[in-house]
């Protein structure tokens, strides 16, 4: 299958996935449901496992109007209708979804194709447009994840190769210890410790992606400023990332080095360098590329907690803010956005695999 067809097919599959995710998140954040009571009667005694509990959307957009005596009943009803809150649950979902796909055909006629698609995701708790908040936050998360993945690969692959080639040397043992420690260290504790160090040293800056006065900086300074802000979250995330990846690369390479074709390459007198770097390492990297998609998924989740601790304004930080303030519109959208990023990440991983290893059949 040609690659563009494959991409098209994957996107077509992704659409129902995203739709169902949107239903799930709408259900979680908006549906008022009741559980319990769970109880039973034995020998005339009633045992209650769980009392009746209401899971309710804690934000009532009409609460203020209802309390205000100056608002007439008719005005209240009018507002209720305007917000669509009088409609059944599924219609409310439809309203939310249809607003996302709002288009403005006149923009095309005016020669502004970028304004054609005008999603209206509703207002956040603070009165800001949800789409506006996301436009600021998503690039931050993508930047953080991309830099982390890049550094992980650049550091972990050579380390893994080195460890495999020096199997059971002291360096290999040291790396094994490092990877065990790195994988076990809880990211938020590491983040706290690094943040403490940053506060004591006064550098690197903590929280945000840019410093005050960012707009006045020259291009080079801007880059340095962003890099300094990325330093802490990237370090926390790479520690566990490198630990896992290094170990996998080492294991893969050790397996490959035992393969027949490596023995053949050696037997025919190929220089050892060529045997390792042209034959063995290449094959050993392949399975890691397959894992790239999953890695991205894990990273997206893992980064969320780190973003929250280090106050890095990415999608994870936004998600926490939203659920803490029960900012319904924002929380629903963040959940869907997270899923979209994840699906795109997986797709990207598959395409990369095809590029790295043309033998792979896409289907």
């Amino acid at each position, binding site marked *: 299958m040609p690659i563009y067809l494959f991409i098209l097919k994957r996107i077509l599959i992704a659409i129902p*996935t995203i739709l*169902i*995710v949107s239903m*799930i*998140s709408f259900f*979680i*954040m908006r549906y008022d449901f009741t559980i319990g009571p769970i109880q039973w009667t034995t020998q005339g005694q009633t045992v209650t496992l*769980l009392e009746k*509990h*209401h*899971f*309710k959307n804690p934000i009532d957009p009409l609460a203020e109007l209802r309390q205000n005596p100056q608002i007439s009943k008719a005005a209240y009803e009018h507002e209720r209708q305007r917000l669509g809150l009088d409609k059944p649950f599924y219609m409310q979902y439809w309203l939310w979804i249809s607003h996302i796909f709002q288009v403005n055909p006149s923009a095309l006629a005016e020669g502004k194709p970028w304004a054609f698609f005008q999603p209206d995701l509703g207002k956040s708790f603070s009165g800001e447009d949800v789409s506006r908040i996301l436009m600021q936050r998503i690039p931050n998360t993508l930047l953080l994840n991309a830099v982390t993945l890049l550094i992980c690969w650049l550091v972990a692959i050579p380390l893994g190769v080195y460890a495999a080639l020096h*199997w059971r040397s002291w360096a290999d043992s040291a790396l*094994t210890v490092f990877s*065990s*420690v790195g*994988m*076990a*260290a*809880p990211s*938020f*504790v590491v983040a*706290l*410790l690094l*943040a*403490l160090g940053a*506060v*004591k040293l006064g550098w690197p800056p903590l929280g945000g992606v840019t410093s005050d006065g960012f707009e006045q900086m020259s291009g080079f300074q801007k880059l340095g400023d962003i890099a300094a802000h990325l330093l802490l979250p990237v370090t926390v995330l790479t520690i566990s990332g490198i630990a896992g990846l290094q*170990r*996998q690369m*080492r*294991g*893969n390479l*050790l*397996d490959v080095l035992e393969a027949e074709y490596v023995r053949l390459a050696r037997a025919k007198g190929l220089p050892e360098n060529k045997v390792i770097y042209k034959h063995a390492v290449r094959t050993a990297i392949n*399975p890691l590329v397959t894992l790239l998609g999953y890695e991205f*998924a894990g990273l*997206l*989740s*893992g980064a*969320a*907690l780190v973003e*929250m*601790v280090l106050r890095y304004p990415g999608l*994870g930080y936004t*998600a*926490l803010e939203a*659920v*803490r303030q*029960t900012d319904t519109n924002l*929380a629903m959208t*963040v*959940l869907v956005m*997270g*899923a979209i*990023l*994840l*699906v795109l990440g*997986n797709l990207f991983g598959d395409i990369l695999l095809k590029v790295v290893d043309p033998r792979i059949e896409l289907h």
Partner: protein
Amino acid sequence: MLETRARGKYHKIWRELSRDKIVLGCILFLVGLYSTIVVAGFLAPYSEDFSDRDQAYAPPTPIFVLDEGKPSWPFVVTYERRFDPETYGFGFYPDYSKRYPLRFFVQGEAYKFLGIIPSRLHLVGVDAPARLFLLGTDMNGRDIFSRLLYGGQVSLTIGFLGLFVAFPIGLLYGGISGYFGNRVDNWMMRLAEIIMSIPSFYLLISLAAILPSGLASRQRFALIVVILALIGWAGISRIIRGMVLSLKEQEYVEAARSLGASSLWIITRHLLPQTTTYLIVAITLGVPGYLLAESGLSFLGLGIQPPDASWGNMLREAQDLSNIMLRPWLLLGPGLLIFITILAFNVVGDKLRDILDPKAKGRRA
């Protein structure tokens, strides 16, 4: 006959495990840890919600073994918390006039031994008004050491409970999907993929955030277990499905089918038992994930709520960086325990996988 063979298998696994000194150390540590939390009430000098407001943020209580240069029975002294006008902070000033010896097997606060037997016996304690805060206190003057023990009861069991809920769902779902194959498999796996395509931590905090606030602590704990399991089953089912797909081609399945066994019977009696070795490894390697998820959730204030203790919500006070700087005991106890526990589970799990599944990647130590 079958039983002895099975016992022989586990015996062999145990022999291989115990040959590695590091792995053995990890197993002993975990066994010790779990036995500690079982008898937490007895070992903890104070109860979970004991609080002495006059001793907020008290540092670990020093235990003296020398009395004016001469060895003596270990004792502690009282401390007064006073405002220091020079530093604008609170300081703890010892009062050496009276000594309070450590007492073993003392009567103290009431608790339930093993959760059933009411008891007042504590391993160690001192007479009031002196306090024995082995690892200091938190903002409310609660004893961190005691709370670590009680918190362990939550943090260390949530993994097993979560897996206990997630595994049956994942096993059955993956088993059915793999056994029937084709269209059923296609649809069922698509659903699992949808669950997996939501970044798990985002889903976790959204679900935790809608828990009603009026829940009793046990119910909240149970619901968090359910939430964790709801997120975890999809990954398990995918792996089980892959295993069943290859297992079902084998002859004994065909034999069972020709004998007229029902599909459910074949899945639960013939196919799923083949996955036990995977289960053992998956449980050992899965517990740390649940421990991390719970502590992360509680750390953010969405999981176990104070006054109940969990290692995650004990770290909550460490979010304030000045707290870590001035009172490192707030971070060190729970942070180190989480780290070492995960490390131990990972080491044992990796070794188990090497023994049970020699084809796994990255095996050579």
